[in-house]
């Protein structure tokens, strides 16, 4: 298969298959969580649960000072990676075009030079998290195959995207094909892995905030 053929497959059927696995997988996983349900709480609430839950969905994004001080690398690298990844995904002009073709929505992009920097920062943060997972006793103790796999499938689109953007290592069409394939790998792995936290964290934070909120505690 030539570079251009690979690119065409990746752009066409490949993306459709991966996209379908991703969308259906995520919906099924979230439905499976919600369908488990939970018992109605019969205790007399001090406050409602809905708003404290929603508040926690937002406020939990920022750690309290003591918690930040105890794990600074996890929080800093975590922020840099998540922001870098989201911004390059959503604000790189060719990505916007692709998303427009799917959603019909359009928004202004960021300059390529900034996208370039964001990708490097994001990759650096993932490498830092990888090394930290290797050497930090707690994180090493908690790590399983899924953690390493998630790191790998997340860094690949960033690395291939960066290389394609800068015309490095391989001809542009070849690298672009590998970039799209790596995204497809990410999409396919996503619903079956801890990457699901991208969506399920909203539920987790809401439940936590709602459970505490009805007791009158803002967590």
């Amino acid at each position, binding site marked *: 298969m030539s570079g251009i053929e690979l690119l065409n497959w990746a752009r066409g059927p490949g993306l459709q298959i991966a996209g379908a696995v991703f969308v259906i997988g995520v919906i099924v*996983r979230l439905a*499976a*969580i*919600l*369908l*488990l*349900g*939970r*018992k109605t*709480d*019969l*205790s*007399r609430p*001090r406050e409602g649960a809905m708003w404290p839950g929603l508040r*926690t*969905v937002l406020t*939990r*994004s920022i*750690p*309290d000072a*003591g*918690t930040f001080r*105890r*794990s600074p690398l*996890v*929080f800093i690298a*975590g922020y840099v990676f998540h922001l870098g990844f989201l911004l390059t995904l959503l604000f790189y002009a060719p990505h916007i075009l692709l998303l427009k073709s799917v959603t019909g929505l359009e928004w202004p992009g960021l300059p390529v030079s900034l996208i370039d920097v964001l990708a490097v920062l994001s990759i650096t943060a993932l490498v830092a998290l990888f090394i930290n997972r290797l050497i*930090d*006793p*707690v*994180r*090493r*103790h*908690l*790590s*399983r195959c899924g*953690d390493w796999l*998630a790191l790998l499938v997340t860094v690949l689109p960033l690395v291939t995207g960066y290389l394609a953007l800068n015309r490095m290592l391989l001809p542009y069409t070849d690298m672009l094909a590998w970039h799209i394939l790596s995204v497809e790998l990410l999409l396919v792995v996503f*619903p*079956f892995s*801890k990457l*699901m*936290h991208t969506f*399920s*964290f909203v*539920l*987790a*934070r*809401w*439940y*936590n*905030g709602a*459970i*505490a909120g009805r*007791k*009158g*505690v*803002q*967590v």
Partner: protein
Amino acid sequence: MSGKLERGLNTLKAQIDAPMAAFFSSCVHCGVCAHACLFYTETGDPKYTPIYKLEPMRRVWQQEYSFWGKLARALGLSKPVTDQELADWEELVYDSCTLCGRCSLVCPVGNDITYMIRRMREGMVAAGHAPKGLKQVTVRTVEIGSPMGITPETLRKQAAHAEQDAGLPVPLDVAGADYLLLLSANETMVFTDTLPALTRIFHQAGVSWTLSSEAYEATNAGIQIGSSDIAAELVQRIVSAAEKLKVKYVISPECGHAYTALRWEGPNLIGRPYPFEVIHVAELLDQLRAEGRLKLDSRETGRLSFHDPCQMVRRGGVIEQPRRLLDQVAEDFVEMPDAGIHNWCCGGGGGVSANERAVPLRRRAFHRKKEQLDGLQLTTLVTSCANCRDMLEDGLEYYDMDIEVKGLADLLAEHLAESEPGAQGGEQS
């Protein structure tokens, strides 16, 4: 597979509801929770990472509810959780977790890890893997009515002592009183100043109250060991007595888990809302203060701080009341670092204090409290949980720290003004 193990695994499976599945699905193994747990911070042993304590239950979740788990099971490739694993995890689930809830406060994806441990204990008990000390306490509570084996006769004797101490009648089994006062076993047997203290405060404020000889024990070993059946039975005793006496309120005493058991879990355990309200004694005292019914005439001159009991504050929502009350009596009040909902546990909640095996670990973990207190130059440490009080006394002695520990009600009663009682005070008996 043994019958007990099967029952344990089935219970674990049944305990997985939508929040549990959302929590397991969201964990990214970031390890932040470790640094919120005093058993990790004081030992540095990664096995005490809160989410790691859930590992067998996570495997049950994965095998029963995830795509790969189900696939592996269908192909006969999955390895079920073994009895040995549950036995190995007993120390992590019981000795090194006080259900304090600090990890639930810091998890970046929002997991309520304490909620998870509470549910995991249901499976552990069903499988027969709970600490011996906690099992014994639970049996005593079910059979005799109290973890310390306090019988109704003992209660009557203690009430008589309290009458002598307070110089006031202690109402017992008075139908139609507004408030039914419960006590924790520690208050009945060890911190015996509390009942006379409350008797005097209630008398002065004109509170219509009573004790019950059928339901006097507020602690709930069922909640601590993780057996909903037993917890429900213990709550039901209180509900029955309260209904029989037709009280409007049941007072949850200065005992953290009693409050969680009665106020938050109770109606769910017995499957119906209460016909009365549950009020924490600190809430009631603060209400009396706000209504001008708590009259104090002196102040504590030494330096004071307040230790927040986890179940009352972080997991219970009674946060400002003790502070407003202390403001009435303390001339020199200081907050310790991380005070309020971020406070560190005494190390003995969640059944740990009933577990002799856990004593060395608990004392080691108490080093966190020592660090919080070092430099504050306290004369007195006030708290509002008899179990915390017991653990604080033990820990302070262990670390050779010269700080007096007092209960909130006891302290207030020491500064009570000698004034005319309220209209209804002490007339029921």
